[in-house]
């Protein structure tokens, strides 16, 4: 059992996320990566098994306090897979998970323990982490570099709210193609306004529409390009509130929906129940009805959910730094990122 002292770094991270000091997924990803570097280089661990136990303890802590915050846990899970791969490479044994092949051939392979001590493990892992950090930092540029394949001249692109990834994507394409962008306001915080201002400053012809105007404008739109908070294991999205409606309108008019998602947003869990996994997190209702409304507030319930679930049938393509993938392929990407034993750690 990990002692409380070891969890203090995770608790600091969780507290920063809750207080809004670390906001975007990218910042959370970098903080988690730094945390892991410290754990591997400074904490005491004798072999891979102990290190993995420590990291699993941290994942459990984050999952308990912030069940819907998947970026941090995904990166830690990925590192667990990297650790297992390093050990396999050294001991030249394959720690295969459960598979149909193993079941049918009834292979008597022993449970992999990972408790052999490995002299060079620390350095190998730190090398991997440095590589991974570079990958994280260049992820947005790599996604943006694919923009020219997807955006063509005179197209009308629709996007929702503000996303740094989508912004860079569109600005990269605007360098060489001329197209129009329609930005959905995205109440109640109206981040779409900032997005539209930023795009317009780069010379892209931008239109802002209210959330209610999405269906009306959708018939003129060629593509919908959006970001997301997480990608679920079935290929669905946990995205900002309102995106499901946009996706449904797009499906109605057969407009392709492209989702720009970094690899650390791919999470191995499913949305089992909407109440628990999607609509549980709410922001302040004061954004919808201000407190100054007075006694009326006693008579009404105001909900302001942050997230929305979009089923996989409504998504056409996921664009990550490695290229585009269909939602039905997400299971394969997951098996490359995480080890099946680490999918559920609660």
């Amino acid at each position: 059992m990990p002692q409380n002292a070891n969890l203090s770094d995770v608790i600091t991270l969780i507290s920063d996320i809750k207080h809004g000091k670390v906001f975007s997924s990218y910042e959370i990803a970098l903080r988690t990566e730094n945390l892991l570097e410290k754990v591997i280089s400074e904490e005491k661990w004798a072999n891979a098994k102990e290190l993995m136990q420590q990291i699993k303890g941290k994942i459990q802590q984050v999952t308990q306090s912030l069940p819907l915050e998947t970026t941090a846990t995904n990166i830690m899970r990925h590192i667990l897979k990297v650790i297992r791969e390093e050990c396999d490479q050294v001991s030249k044994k394959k720690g295969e998970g459960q598979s149909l092949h193993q079941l049918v051939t009834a292979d008597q392979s022993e449970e992999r323990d990972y408790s052999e001590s490995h002299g060079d493990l620390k350095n190998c892992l730190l090398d991997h982490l440095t590589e991974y950090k570079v990958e994280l930092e260049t992820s947005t540029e790599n996604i943006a570099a694919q923009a020219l394949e997807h955006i063509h001249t005179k197209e009308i692109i629709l996007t929702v709210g503000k996303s740094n990834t989508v912004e860079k994507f569109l600005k990269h394409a605007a360098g060489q193609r001329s197209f129009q962008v329609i930005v959905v306001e995205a109440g109640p915080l109206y981040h779409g306004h900032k997005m539209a201002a930023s795009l317009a400053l780069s010379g892209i012809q931008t239109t802002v529409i209210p959330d209610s105007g999405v269906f009306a404008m959708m018939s003129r739109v060629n593509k919908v390009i959006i970001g997301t908070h997480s990608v679920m294991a079935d290929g669905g999205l946990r995205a900002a509130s309102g995106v499901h409606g946009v996706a449904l309108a797009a499906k109605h008019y057969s407009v392709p929906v492209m989702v720009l998602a970094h690899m650390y947003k791919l999470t191995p869990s499913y949305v089992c129940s909407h109440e628990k996994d999607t609509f549980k997190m709410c922001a302040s209702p004061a954004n919808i009805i201000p407190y100054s409304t007075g006694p009326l507030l006693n008579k009404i319930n105001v909900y302001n959910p942050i997230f929305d679930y979009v089923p996989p049938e409504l998504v056409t393509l996921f664009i990550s730094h490695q290229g585009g993938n269909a939602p039905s392929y997400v299971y394969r990407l997951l098996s490359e990122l995480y080890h099946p034993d680490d999918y559920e750690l609660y």
Partner: protein
Amino acid sequence: MIFLQDVNDWKNEIIERGKTFVENVKSSRQKAVQVGERFITDGATILTHGYSRTVKTLLLKAAQKKKFKVIVTEGRPECLGYRYAEELSLHEIPVTIILDSAVGRIMERVDFVIVGAENVTENGGVINKLGTYPLALTAVAAHKPVYGIVESFKFARLYPLRQDDLPPSQDETVNFSSVPPNKNTATKDLVKFFNPLFDFTPPSYIQLLFTDLGVLTPSAVSDELIKLCPN
């Protein structure tokens, strides 16, 4: 890979592997149930079709911690739905029995559908008791998820393109009616019966499969099968 010189060693190895296989298979139902338990939520209304021991184990296990309702179809012509409902209600699960044809009428009250399977085909479709296909069609039309729970040894290298591609497992012309079709003995043989045991549900109607290998989307099934037979 193990290379053995002696025929007796060979025989013993095969017997040992066989025993391990049986052990693995016995535990696969429990593993699949553990995987699927999370998807049964408190207060859910679940619709199921056909008497599947795997689904029954899942429902009984989930009922230990959660409260939910089950709707069971009658399941003609075997009518196993009655026995199924009785067994579930002994464990204090509220059960409703409906006619097979009531599926469309009741679908709006249902939260999700869960079925077992005789086989899972290579494209992730499911071969199950007659009536599963129209049930899945109705569920998808009403935007309700359809889940399958099945052990991985039921994955088959079958790829049916149409319903008639399923091999018949019994005499499909047997009379299943307790009411005689007509009283006129001269025309008795002119009326034919079609009574297959199974139908095929294509993968586009199935959301997820709960197996002992974890939760799989239908597209992931072919990956597992390819790993099994590399050629």
